[in-house]
């Protein structure tokens, strides 16, 4: 997966020109001297950033400490800033300036359970961030003009060169009609979109468990459990997909999934919660939704009250 260009070594994990002679990629912290761990299905394990590895961004530096619940320690140069959600802040030196960073569309964010206000830290000074789950920190350096889509609650911290927006991913289904209508959003109501506008920026994400990445070819599909998805390239198309497992006796609930179609990169995490928002049928699904019933005789299953059995392919 690693490549060599006229300018040198391209890091397979951040896809930027890197330095093969250093033990870790200076852009994303991924170890350079490890063999790629790729399974038979094409998933590549993102190697955890080594304890105390350093990442350079602008005139500032980030150091990743710890292995179970890693901490991102930043040494901010004068005038350089990062922003983050307040609950990931672990410690700070008194010299670091903290300020509130109000976000647009406050009502939408409140409605979606996202933080209304972010915090901004300005150098000079040191500051530490960590999330609350065992897992890995993923460093995503973004070249100017590049964007990625991130599932909510994975964002840790970003430099101010990276803008933060959000959008409706269209991953939903509903149940019932009229006042009984209920919507389900297995991926969250919104997804975060991070874009480096004028210059390169650094984005740090936190994933639970281990992280795996896969580069999808043109029109190559992969079906992922919604809560396992961490991020995807903008070029990766996604829509909701419902699976009904075959069962001779029990009436199985539907299994909602996200269908991701290349080209582009997707990343998943190995620890994700069980999604209880599942039912036996739906009324409508999000745009371009698909489904598949594995039962040989679909007519044997009757819908529950107020639930309409989906159409079968």
């Amino acid at each position, binding site marked *: 997966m690693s490549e060599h260009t006229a300018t040198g070594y391209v890091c397979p994990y951040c896809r930027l020109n890197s330095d093969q002679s250093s033990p870790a990629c200076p852009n994303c912290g991924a170890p350079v001297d490890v063999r790629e761990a790729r399974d038979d299905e094409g998933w590549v394990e993102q190697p955890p950033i080594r304890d*105390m590895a350093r990442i350079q961004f602008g005139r500032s530096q980030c150091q990743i*400490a710890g292995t179970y619940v890693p901490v991102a*320690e930043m040494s901010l140069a004068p005038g350089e800033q990062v922003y983050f959600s*307040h609950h990931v802040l*672990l410690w*700070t*030196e008194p010299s670091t300036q*903290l300020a509130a960073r109000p976000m647009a569309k406050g009502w939408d964010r409140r409605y979606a359970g996202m933080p209304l206000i972010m915090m901004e830290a300005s150098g000079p000074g040191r500051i530490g961030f960590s999330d*609350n789950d065992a897992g890995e920190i993923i460093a995503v350096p973004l070249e100017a003009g590049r964007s990625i889509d991130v599932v909510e609650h994975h964002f840790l911290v970003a430099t101010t060169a990276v803008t933060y927006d959000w959008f409706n991913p269209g991953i939903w289904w509903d149940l019932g009609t009229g006042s009984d209508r209920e919507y389900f959003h297995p991926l969250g109501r919104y997804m975060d979109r991070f874009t480096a506008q004028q210059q390169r920026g650094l984005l740090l994400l936190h994933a639970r468990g281990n992280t795996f990445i896969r580069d999808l070819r043109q029109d190559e599909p992969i079906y992922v459990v919604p809560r396992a998805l961490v991020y995807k390239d903008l070029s990766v198309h996604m829509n909701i997909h419902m699976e009904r497992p075959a069962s001779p006796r029990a009436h199985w609930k539907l299994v909602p999934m996200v269908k991701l179609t290349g080209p582009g990169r997707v990343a998943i995490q190995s620890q994700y919660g069980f999604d209880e928002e599942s039912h036996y049928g739906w009324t409508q699904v999000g745009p371009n939704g698909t489904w598949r019933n594995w039962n040989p005789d679909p007519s044997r299953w009757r819908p529950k009250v107020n639930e309409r059995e989906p159409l079968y392919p």
Partner: protein
Amino acid sequence: MDRIACSWCHYQNEVGATSCGTCGAPLNAADAVSESGWRAAPRLRDMAEFRVANITCQIAGQVVPVAEFTLTEGEVIFFEQHALLWKERTVCLTGKNLRGAGQRKIAGMPHAVIEARGPGRLAVSRDASGEVVVLPLHPEVETDVRGHAFLAASQNVGYDFVKIDKLASMLHGGPGMYLDRFVAGQTQGLLLLHGYGNVFQRRLGPGEKILIEPGGFLYKDSPVAINPVPVQKGAGFHHANWAELTGPGRVGIQSMYVHRHII
């Protein structure tokens, strides 16, 4: 005769030892200290063994580590009831009420501990991924620990609690109303804590300050003062508080912390 000093507990080990005899810290691994001065608690190797007085302790597991004790006849350790994982039949368990049980109950802390008396083996663990932090307590040294981080201690370690000064400190300082206080008697004692996630330690000089997310605080030396400090007034953050720790002394933090809503 040459000795190897453990950089975590300062015990003088014999030449050739690969892990410290009193805290289990690897002796042949480089110290992990970040540029900010935070020193990672020693990652105890799986099955690392160490000994304090007549108590032998072995740390097993990496993700949710277990501390296994081998007690000789009459040797005692104590721990909170729900930390007990397994024991051999010969180990005698005795409940022991703590001073100020009513206050501890109000503060949501256990008001009794279990004493286990040898001979025999037993094991304790907490229910979250993290690290076991071994703090050999030198005589007369006092260490303050946040509630629910205590794993086990030897009998010669005094276990008490201290009320946090000032109402604002109780409400906004982070650890709550009380801190557990451990102090060794005339001989060296053994104190084991469980830190959620990774644990880091920093030694503050006299008057040196550090601001910590209150849920990330794990332990401190008793001379270190803890006070709440507002993060920023206005703009929705007026309820946010830091735990401001002022040296001199050691401060320990955990990276997977108890988050408190501040808006």
